[in-house]
């Protein structure tokens, strides 16, 4: 499977990545070759193989429902670019 320029632009948009125009041909080639590898893997016979959720042969541990986290807003927000009235501010996400 090979991608074209518009596929790469759409993937970049979905991933919210800004990419350099000049790099698009290289990305297109790299991503296409990854997909070709996937195609190759798809040809493996998985008829009798159960889907694998996790490569580790272990099960999830559970946590008791107790509050262990205290308010650390001040510290956590000290790295935020913009804060007001305790809220994180981000570019407007609605028209």
């Amino acid at each position, binding site marked *: 499977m090979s991608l074209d320029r518009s596929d790469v632009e759409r993937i970049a948009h979905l991933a919210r990545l800004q990419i350099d125009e000049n790099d698009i041909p290289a990305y297109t080639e790299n991503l296409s070759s990854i997909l070709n590898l996937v195609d190759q893997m798809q040809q493996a016979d998985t008829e009798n193989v159960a889907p694998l959720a996790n490569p580790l042969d272990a099960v999830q541990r*559970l946590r008791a429902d*107790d509050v262990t986290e205290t308010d650390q807003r001040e510290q956590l927000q000290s790295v935020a670019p913009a804060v007001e009235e305790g809220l994180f501010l981000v570019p407007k996400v609605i028209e």
Partner: protein
Amino acid sequence: MEWEVVIGLEIHVQLSTKTKIFSGASTAFGAAPNTQACAVDLALPGTLPVFNENALRMAVMFGLAVNAEIGKRSVFERKNYFYPDLPKGYQTTQLAEPIVGPGFVDIETDDGVQRRVRIHHAHLEEDAGKSLHEDFHGMSGIDLNRAGTPLIEIVSEPDMRSAKEAAAYARKIHAIVTTLGICDGNMAEGSMRCDCNVSVRPKGEEKLGTRTELKNINSFRFIERAIDSEVARQIDLIEDGGSVVQETRLYDPERNETRSMRSKEDANDYRYFPCPDLLPVVIDDSYIEAIRTTLPELPDARRDRFMNEYSLSEYDAGVLSAYRPQADYYEQVAGACGDAKLAANWVMGELAKYLNQHDTDITQSPVSAAQLGGLLLRIKDNTISGNIAKKVFELMWSEGGSADEIIEAQGLKQVTDTGEIEKIVDEVIARSDKQVEQYKAAEPEKRGKMLGFFMGQVMKATGGKANPGAVNGILKQKLDALCD
């Protein structure tokens, strides 16, 4: 052409755990913004989720309550999309292997339709934060307190055939989750939110029509109205030669119409995959069976018991059992006064009216079940009439106190003393010449109706305290004596 409506619901229920599904931050409602959002909820680098056992237990309780298969192995997956109130860039949810498999609930609408609605599955997932779009100099404000609150999303099959059925199903789910105590059921605070998938097809047609999804409806009344308006829109559209487009629509309660939010073309590709940070959740039969023994009496069972034990109508029993605090309250009142029917009338009548008017939940009622039971006892033993009881109830609501204290303080005790009533009846007759003449002139079989005037006068004279049965008997006897 006759159309058939096809509805399926996706209901999000916030679980009432103390902490988040994957972190130890509190989930209490109403805290100052971002004071309950820890490093895990903020998706800071290096943090890892740890699954809350209580969320698992509550999801299993729900599954058992809707007769479902419980997934002994369930897997968390990542649903990827970008939105600022979702800091990780994906929602941790379940897809291929959910905790609750196929089940069902039985519903009945108020116009008597009964139906079994199949549940496709229910899965565990995390809630997102909240975005506030006003007044931040063109920016949006993000509060992540809600991020990571545990949810179960309950997905029904498209088994409902009217807006009423959809609302009845949502009410039934609400009754179940509140009875189980796994959700506070507060729809205004978003504890239960509903997406409705709606389509229409010509009656008799097998193939489903194209559906639209109505998002985030947070009241039973709006579920009904939103679906009705969407159904009308779809039928008009098709009958005018158009076709329905698969899309997400928002219901606007002010205008009672739905409008397009996004079409399928802009729909996200969520790129689900198993979350590598979480291992498969595995539970065994003994875990499930231990939970089964903790299940409370469920709404359907309680309704049936109310019908058998208290001889209530199916409707009354259904209403009273739908909300556990109300059902508990009712049983206390019935026990205190010993009259199940009277208790039902008062809990669904006067009490419900006051709760509604004051927008108060029954758990916050200023009149306790013991107080109301005490009041009803005084109706039962003829200390007061039903009308006076309403007056006592009003005082009880606004000022507190027991029925006996209020009756005593206000001098509301019913007059049953025949001598006293006779005296008042004599006075009324003596000053009502005109009405007495009319009574005498009337045909005997019409006289009964004419008693009303005298009855009213006697009640007025006694401030409503005379025993109506006694007054009626004495009046009739004295007036008829005048006719001979």
